[in-house]
């Protein structure tokens, strides 16, 4: 049977691949036949990514996404060792909560480096040479509903995600001759370790009740986000580019 989301023969690079959404993405992409290469912050995280696709080879690399200058040699090495990529998924991200009055430049810079600068840099290096990234390839970045909705304590995070979405709309123009597509996914709450931590802290709080009321389709599972990422990587979406797909369980309609 023809599966429009089939990823057989596609090689995909994934950052933050050991995290909740990242490891689900490794699992889903391998299930669809893709070859995946993982980057994450530690050996342990890389191990989690590899464990998500048992029986499959998932080459892993460690990187500190705050050290943006170190990404170019790393990406070159990854391409030399693995060949040309057809896709790239940026799941690496941090979501600090910090009162605005305590949000100094360095507190904004960190999330910007990990969530935004590292994405732009990796795409730049990947697409600089045709033997690193295929014409017609697809790139997906994790944005967030925070890109369009404000919340207290989320200034740095929201700004980094909005920067990402705005940059993507321009980058697609720069890469259009090679038919390289870029899109972002904007979830609200996802059932990851980050959400479990929030539940522990705020069980039975007005904040939690607001989430339950407004996100009326429920909290997303990481696999659901990974499915949308796979959809955007696949040839099923050959004409979708420069867009941001909301996965917010209904929040923005309410």
């Amino acid at each position: 049977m023809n599966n429009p989301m089939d990823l057989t023969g596609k090689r995909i690079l994934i950052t933050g691949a050991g995290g909740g959404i990242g490891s689900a993405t490794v699992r889903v992409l391998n299930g669809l036949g893709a070859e995946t290469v993982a980057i994450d912050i530690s050996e342990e995280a890389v191990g989690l990514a590899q464990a998500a696709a048992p029986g499959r080879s998932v080459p892993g690399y460690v990187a500190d996404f705050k050290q943006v200058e170190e990404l170019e040699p790393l990406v070159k090495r990854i391409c030399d060792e693995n060949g040309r990529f057809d896709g790239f998924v940026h799941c690496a991200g941090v979501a600090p909560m910090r009162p605005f009055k305590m949000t100094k430049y360095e507190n904004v810079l960190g999330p910007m480096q990990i969530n935004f600068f590292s994405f732009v840099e990796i795409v730049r290096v990947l697409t600089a040479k045709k033997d690193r990234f295929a014409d017609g390839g697809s790139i997906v970045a994790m944005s967030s509903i925070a890109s369009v909705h404000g919340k207290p304590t989320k200034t740095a995070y929201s700004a980094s995600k909005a920067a990402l979405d705005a940059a993507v709309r321009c980058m697609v123009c720069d890469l259009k001759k090679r038919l390289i597509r870029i899109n972002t996914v904007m979830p609200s709450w996802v059932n990851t370790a980050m959400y479990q931590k929030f539940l522990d802290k705020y069980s039975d709080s007005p904040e939690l009740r607001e989430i339950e009321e407004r996100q009326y389709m429920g909290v997303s599972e990481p696999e659901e986000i990974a499915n949308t990422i796979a959809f955007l990587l696949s040839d099923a979406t050959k004409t979708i580019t420069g867009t941001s797909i909301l996965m917010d369980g209904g929040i923005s309609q309410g």
Partner: protein
Amino acid sequence: MDFLRMKDRHILITGGAAGIGRQTAITLSELGAKVAVLDLQEEGLKETLSMLQDEGHSIHTVDLSDIDALEGLIVSIVKETGAFDGFVHCAGIVKNLPIINYKYERLHKIMLVNFYSYFEIIRVLSKKGRFNEGMSIVGISSVAATQGAAAQAAYAASKAAMNGAMRCLAKELGEKGIRLNTVLPAATETAMYTEYMALKAQMKDTEMKIAPNPRQYLGMNAPADVANAIIFLLSPASRKITGVQLPVDGGYASC
């Protein structure tokens, strides 16, 4: 400094017998503009007229759902009082019903008043001799155009239709130097809002509370809050702003 420069500008306002439309007419008259106010409610129109400053204003009783009658009416008002510098479509009706009760005629009635009459008046006004250079058109849309709420489908659709048409007309009529924008208010202290909350209280069987949604964190709009935004968009101070949806929502859409 006269920042808004509205003196002697001639503005057409629909839905001026109450609420945001009435407040817009009053403030415009205080700024020296001349207004022609339309509404279905004759008593309310007379009351609005009595609240206007200075002379030279006019009121006209009209059923905006009678689309075919609008061209004749607008032409006669232009003959009587002169060409227009601005048009504000405040007329709007709301009927909140579950979808199973929304037969076509009910939906159509809402579209007639909230949207088709806006469109028809713009069509008629944008003909030569009926508008002055730099005419600005402001439609009252709503946060409902971008945010969903149960039982509001028809109202929301009519307000979203206005925004969609506005963006196209801004391009099309831009050649004639005509600007178009919409404002998107959230809860505003008007009779319409009071009725809406009464209905909501009835539906949910809870105590009626005239309080805005907590997401409207700057608090409930007064009609003047919306009128001030309308007048800025009417004025030459905003002469480079066109095709825009301006929320006047106390922060509602930001979070």
